[in-house]
């Protein structure tokens, strides 16, 4: 699947296109299919998101998983600071990245 990601213009937070808006959680990402470029152009023009782009991902049991490690680190947070990730209480969360 093709999912869309970028950074919130004001806060810089990593966000994912959920079909209506931009979510902080990659599991909300939807398959943008052949609409990716249209959505990206429209959303960047509204200034809700910055530097947005499309990436490959798969839908798995645990949710949406970006194909590349870089995007998985963006989705969760730095692997070396579990306390700063989106799942600070989950000691296993880092395994999902690798």
């Amino acid at each position: 699947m093709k999912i869309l990601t970028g950074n919130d213009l004001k806060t810089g937070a990593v966000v994912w296109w959920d079909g209506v808006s931009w979510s902080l959680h990659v599991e909300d990402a939807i398959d943008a299919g052949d609409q990716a470029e249209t959505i990206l152009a429209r959303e960047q023009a509204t200034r809700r998101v910055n530097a947005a782009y499309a990436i490959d991902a798969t839908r798995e049991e645990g949710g949406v998983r970006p194909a590349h490690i870089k995007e998985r680190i963006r989705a969760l947070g730095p692997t070396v600071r579990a306390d700063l990730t989106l799942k600070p209480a989950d000691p296993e969360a880092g395994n999902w990245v690798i």
Partner: protein
Amino acid sequence: MYKYDTYDQQLVDTRVEEFRDQVRRRLEGHITEDQFKPLRLMNGLYLQLHAYMLRVAVPYGTLNSAQMRMLGHIADKYDRGYGHFTTRQNIQYNWIKLEQAPDILADLASVEMHAIQTSGNCIRNTTSDQYAGAAADEVVDPRPYAELIRQWSTFHPEFSFLPRKFKMAVIASDTDRAAMRLHDIGIKIVRNDASDLGAAFYVGGGMGRTPMIAPCINPFVPLDRFITYAEACLRVYNRHGRRDNKYKARIKILVHELGKEEYTRQVEAEFAHLLTQGVEPPLAELERIKAQFTEPPFEVGISDEVDRSDPDFALWLETNCLAHRQPGYVAVTISLKPVGGIPGDASADQMRLMADLARDYSFDELRVTHAQNVVLPHVKKADLYALWQALDAAGLGTANLDRIGDIIACPGLDYCSLANARSIPVAQKISERLSPRSDEIGELKLKISGCINACGHHHAGHIGILGVDRKGVENYQLLLGGNEGADTSLGTITGPGFDEDGIVDAVDRATGVYLANKQGAERFLDTYRRIGMAPFKEAIYG
């Protein structure tokens, strides 16, 4: 320490308000990201993996305690309670909000700091010896010259759009503690036979994709014309540097392609021309700057003795303290490399503590080192035990300067959008595995970069590690034999790369080869240079 005059302050304050307006226009949609990006980069604001990242300049690595306290305040108020000290003697914050960036710059300006010259194709923040003004072996304090370069280069209209970024370092000792020959221009202040001071110019060094050691193009430029000489070096580069290919755009490629002789010939011709143009700042300005780098009011006739009865303290004293030129004092390196920690990171509380300790024990001064540590340059020996206790209680008392645990590591794929692989977890694992043998291994400089840009100086590590992307999987190349300093050398790749655990094992084996072959007081690097790559390869791959 240099103190802003009204001109400096006005320049920085004006810049803050200009950026505030630019941010407002971006948020209101009056300018696009394409238009805004170069403006935010000129103010040190990048967009990184998780958020905006702000890189704050620490000119030639020197801070006072109010400035360090402000860095802690920014970490708490605008970021997530910490910052990362970099190999360019700067500090980066990883979780910045665009809407707050102008307020941060205003807070910085209130303590004479800014984020100018930390990005873009301009002359970047000049680096220097972290022991400047304290080292016994310097011919003069190099910082007034670095400050003059700062003033000359800030917003220099001719050099704001160079072919690529441009990094300068200034030292004044035979021992090079600033990797001077791995800069676009390295300047070494020297004294000639007539006892006059001059600047030796080394041009065309650098790391990155094509590492090169800068050749000396002029061993003695009188100090009343060294800015003019630097300007000539820049002019020739600005004229001929490649703008068509980012990977060939640094001055090192130009010097290499023209050849040292031809490049030097052109610089000398330009220099002769510029001497007729009066571009050198007035000597009075240099004197005004010098007057602000006066020696602290050291106590004289004090004891040189230190009670070493606490063995942990004695080890730290041996490892992290450097002889000072003033009897009764030392320069202290505060390690930001606790065993298994994140190299170069410091919490807001640690920053405030370091600020307080600088105020109480080091005449209000601190330095950031290119090895991602912090120095208190002027500490009375009688105060060392109390200082160490305070540091140790805050996790800042690790005794590992230039040891296997004192690893330089760039942010890598945990934070950096250009990265191929993570650097920090590799550093942590090596530190945990080998720190227990730190004393046995002795001096060993290990440096890790998460991509070929080499921010982690891997080419110059006795052991270097480079993260690469092998079909979407992190892979690590091992290099041996690099060094910075008077005998600068570039590391050689051992062979095929490793996964994360494999690279830790490989480093472990390399240190084993050293220990098995070491003669006398040889360091890892000395043994490698004597026995060559073969035994290491055999142990690592065999």
